[in-house]
C-alpha cells in the first residue's frame, strides 16, 4: 500500500543571488509505514538533488535529523509520516530546527550548540589514585546516569527551548543535561565546582520550566528534570545566593507559610528589600498592576486548611 504525501519544506539557499527563505512543495508517493525521513530522502535522491538535510543512521541513535514538523521539533527518522499528515489533507510542514540559525535548507548551525556543551567541561574529573581495576560504583547509580547518557545531541530540545528564544546566553537543555551526567556520577570529584559554575547567569536557574524540552526529546532524557535535580543539589551544597535560588526558596517559604504565593513578598525576598536597582526595575509592573487593581493585599491571610499544606511539606522533606 502506498500513500500520496505533500511536503511543504522551508528552504534557504545561501548561494542564491539574493538569499531568502521560501517554501517549496513536493508531492511524493510513499509506502504506508514510511518515516518523514524516507520522504525527504526520496525527494533529494530522485526529484530534487538540491534539497539539503543531515541524516545518517535512520534508527534514532546518531542524532543528525532533528527538524521541525508542523511547528514541533522531531527526529525525522522515527517520525511516521502518517502521524504528521494533517487530517484536512493540507501539506506536512517541514522546517529547520529552531534557535540555531539556518545554514542551508534543513541544515542548521551547530557551532554554538557544541560550544555550550564544551562549556560545561563534559569529561569525568576523578581525583586521587587511579585504581588498578575499575572504579567501584553501584549499578543503580550507573543505570540512572544511563538515562541521561541516552542523549544523542540531536538538538531537538534546543530547537524548541523557549528560554533560548529570548536569551541566547542560556546554556540550554542539552548542555545542562550533559552537565548533570557528571554532577550525578559517583566517580566525579568536582560536583561542587560544577554546581557552583552552573548557578551563574545562563545556567540552571535560567530555565523557566516550560517542559518543551521534555516533550520534544526523542530519547526520554528529560533535560528539565535533570536541571531541577541540579537545583536541589546546588541548594543542598549551599549555593543559595543567586536570584534563581532565592526565588525558589522564597516561593517554597511563602507557600508553606500561607498556602498561596504572596506576589508582593516574592520579589522582596528574592532580590532583598535594599536592592534598589532590582526594585526600581519592578516599579513599572507594580504601577501597571495598581492601575488594573491587581496588587495583592499587604497582609494576606493563610488559606483555610493551611495545616494540610504544611503536612505535605513535612512529608516531602522527610523523604529527602
Amino acid at each position, binding site marked *: 500500500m502506498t500513500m500520496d504525501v505533500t511536503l511543504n519544506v522551508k528552504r534557504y*539557499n*545561501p*548561494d542564491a543571488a539574493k538569499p531568502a527563505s521560501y517554501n517549496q512543495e513536493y508531492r511524493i508517493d510513499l509506502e504506508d*509505514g514510511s518515516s518523514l525521513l524516507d520522504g525527504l530522502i526520496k525527494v*533529494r*535522491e*530522485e526529484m*530534487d*538533488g*538540491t534539497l*539539503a*538535510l*543531515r*541524516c*545518517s*543512521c*535512520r*534508527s*534514532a*541513535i*546518531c*542524532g*543528525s535529523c532533528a527538524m521541525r514538523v508542523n511547528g514541533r521539533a522531531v527526529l525525522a527518522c*522515527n517520525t*511516521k509520516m502518517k502521524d504528521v499528515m494533517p487530517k484536512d489533507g493540507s501539506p506536512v510542514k517541514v522546517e529547520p530546527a529552531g534557535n540555531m540559525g539556518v*545554514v*542551508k*535548507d534543513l*541544515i542548521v548551525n*551547530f557551532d554554538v550548540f*557544541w560550544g555550550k*556543551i*564544551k562549556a560545561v567541561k*563534559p*569529561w*569525568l574529573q*576523578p581525583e586521587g589514585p*587511579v585504581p588498578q*581495576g*575499575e*572504579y*567501584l*560504583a*553501584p*549499578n543503580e547509580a*550507573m*543505570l540512572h*546516569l*544511563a538515562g541521561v*547518557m*541516552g542523549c*544523542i*545531541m540531536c538538538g531537538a530540545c534546543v530547537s524548541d527551548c523557549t528560554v533560548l528564544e529570548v536569551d541566547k546566553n542560556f546554556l540550554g537543555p542539552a548542555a545542562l543535561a550533559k552537565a548533570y551526567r557528571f554532577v550525578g*556520577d559517583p*566517580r566525579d570529584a568536582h560536583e561542587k565546582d560544577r554546581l557552583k559554575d552552573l548557578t551563574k547567569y545562563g545556567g540552571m536557574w535560567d530555565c523557566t520550566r516550560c517542559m518543551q524540552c521534555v516533550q520534544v526529546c526523542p530519547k526520554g532524557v528529560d533535560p528539565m528534570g535533570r536541571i531541577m535535580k541540579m537545583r536541589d543539589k546546588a541548594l543542598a551544597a549551599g549555593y543559595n545566593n543567586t536570584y534563581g535560588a532565592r526565588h525558589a526558596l522564597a516561593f517554597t517559604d511563602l507557600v508553606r507559610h500561607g498556602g498561596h504565593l504572596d506576589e508582593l513578598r516574592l520579589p522582596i525576598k528574592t532580590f532583598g528589600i535594599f536592592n534598589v536597582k532590582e526594585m526600581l526595575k519592578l516599579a513599572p509592573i507594580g504601577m501597571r498592576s495598581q492601575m488594573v487593581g491587581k496588587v495583592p493585599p499587604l497582609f494576606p491571610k493563610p488559606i483555610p486548611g493551611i495545616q494540610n499544606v504544611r503536612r505535605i511539606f513535612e512529608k516531602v522533606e522527610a523523604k529527602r
Partner: protein
Amino acid sequence: MFDHDVLVIGAGLAGMRAALAASQAGVNVAVVTKVFPVRSHSNAAQGGINAALTDRGDKWEDHAYDTVKGSDYLGDQDAIEIMCKEAGSEIINMEHMGTIFNRDAEGKLGVRAFGGQRQARTFFVADFTGQALLYVLHEQVMKSGVRVYEEWFVLSLIVEGGECCGAVVMEMKTGEVHTIRAKAVIMATGGIGRVFEPSTNALICTGDGMALAYRAGAPLMDMEMIQYHPTTLKSNGALMSEAARGEGAYLINKDGDRFMKRYAPNMMELASRDVVSRSEQTEINEGRGVNGCVLLDCRHLGEKLIKEKLGQIRQLGIDFANADMIKEPVPVRPGMHYVMGGIRTNYDGLTSIPGLYAAGETACVSVHGGNRLGANSLLDTLVFGKRSGQHAAAGVKSKQHAAGVTDAYSEAEKKKIQAILDRPADGGELFGKVRQELGETMNKYLAVFRDQQGMETAQRKVKELRMRYEKVIVHDKGRTFNTNLIFTLELGFMFDCAETVIVGALERKESRGAHTRTDMPKRDDANWLKHVVQFRTPEGPRIEDQPVKITQWQPQVRSY
C-alpha cells in the same frame, strides 16, 4: 594549506582512540570527519565489547581461541593474540575515562553472554554500548584540544615518493577545497554498509576510506567476507542487537520451533553469526519462515529485563516493525551488517604505504577472518586505533613534511569536481536510483548464500551501473553544503568497494565463514587457508595471496 604531524580521517571509535593515543605521545594531531564525531556509526553498536579479565577467572587465550574459531581459521592469530591480550586494559581505560558500564552486585563491571563464545565476557551499557564509548572518547578529544575538522569530506590521499603525506579535503559548509599536509595519515572511516541495500549501517557508511586507500595504492584484503547479522528488521534493515539472544531470547520458525537445535545443538541461538544467519536463511528458503523472516522471541525475558537492558531495540521494534517484544515475537532476518575485509594492515595499523595507517572496520588486520564475533568490533577499534596512533606518532617525531606537497593537489581535485558539476543536465539521472540498484544487486547475489552464476551476474550488473554512474548529474551547483555532490562522490567510492567484494568472492573457491557458496559448500584448507589481496590497476583488481598466520591453533572442523 594546513600542516599536522598526524592526520586521522574519521571520528568514530577507532579514529578518536588513534587521535588520543597520538596526542598523548606529544605530536600535533588533527581529525577530519564528514559528520560531527558523535554522529559516527560506532554509536550504533549495541550489544557490548569483549574482554577476558583475569580477575573474573577468564583467560585471554580462551577469548583468542573463540575468535580464531569464529573466524573460521582465516584470522591472523598473531594479531588476534594481541587484541585479546590488550582487551582488558582498554576496557578499564574506557571505564576510568568515564564510560558508564552496567555493574554487578559488587559494583564491578558486569558481563553478558554473546555469540560464539564459551564464556560471558561482553561488557556493556544497556543496549547502546557503542554510543556510551563514543561519547566518552569525544569528551576526551574535546578535553585534549586536538583539532577536529568537523563536516569536512576527504576527496583523495596524497602520496609522494611512495609515502602518504596528507589529504585533499572539502569543507562542506563553504565548499572550499584544502590541502592538509601530514607526516602520517590514519584511515578510520568505518565500513561499506551502503554498498548493500538494505543494510544495518548508517547512510554515511560508504566505504570512503577503503576506496581512498585503494586508489592511493594500498591493497584491500578479504573483501569477500561480508557479515550478515542474524537479527535485522525487514522494513528498514535496522539492527536488533545480539544482546537479545545474549540475554536469552529464542529464534523460532513459523511452527514455534527453536530451529537452531538442528544447526548448532550446543550453542543454539548463540552460535557464530554466520552459522545463525545461514540457519535462518535455510528455514526461510525451505518454507518455515514468516513472510521472509523468522521470529525473535523475547517474551520469556520479562518486562523488567527488557526495559532495563534492551530498551532501545524494543523501541526500534515498536517504531519499525509494529511489534513490542514484551508482548510478541519480532520478525527478523539476516541483514548485511559488517565487512571483515578492508585495507590490509599489520598489527600496528601500518598499510603497505609508508605513512598510511588504518584501523577499525575500514582495516583488515586481520582479526575477524571469515566471520567476526559479536562485540569484537568495538574491541578491534580501540586496540588497533590505539596502536595505530602510537605507532604513527613514534614514526613522525624525526620526520619532516614532504616538500612536494602544495596546493596543486587541491587544484586538481577542484577541476575534477567542476567537471562533474558541468555535466550536461539533459537526460541525466540523479545518483539515487543508481545507488539503490547497486545495493539491491549486491544484496541479491552476494548475501548469505552465493554461487558462481549469481556473482557473475552481479559483476556484469555492477559494470553497467558504473557506466550509468559516470553520467549521473548533480542538480545542486552551489558551494554551501552541496550534499548532492558529496553523495555522488561517495557513490564512486562505493563502486570501488562493490567491485572488490565481487572479485574477492569469485576468487575464493570454497565456503568459509560468511562466504558460503552453494556450488562449493566445503571449506578447503589445502588450497584456501589464505587471504585474498587486491591491488588496483587500470584494468581492474590484481590479485595476490597471503598466508594466514597460525600461532597455536591448527584448523579444525568448526561446529557449535
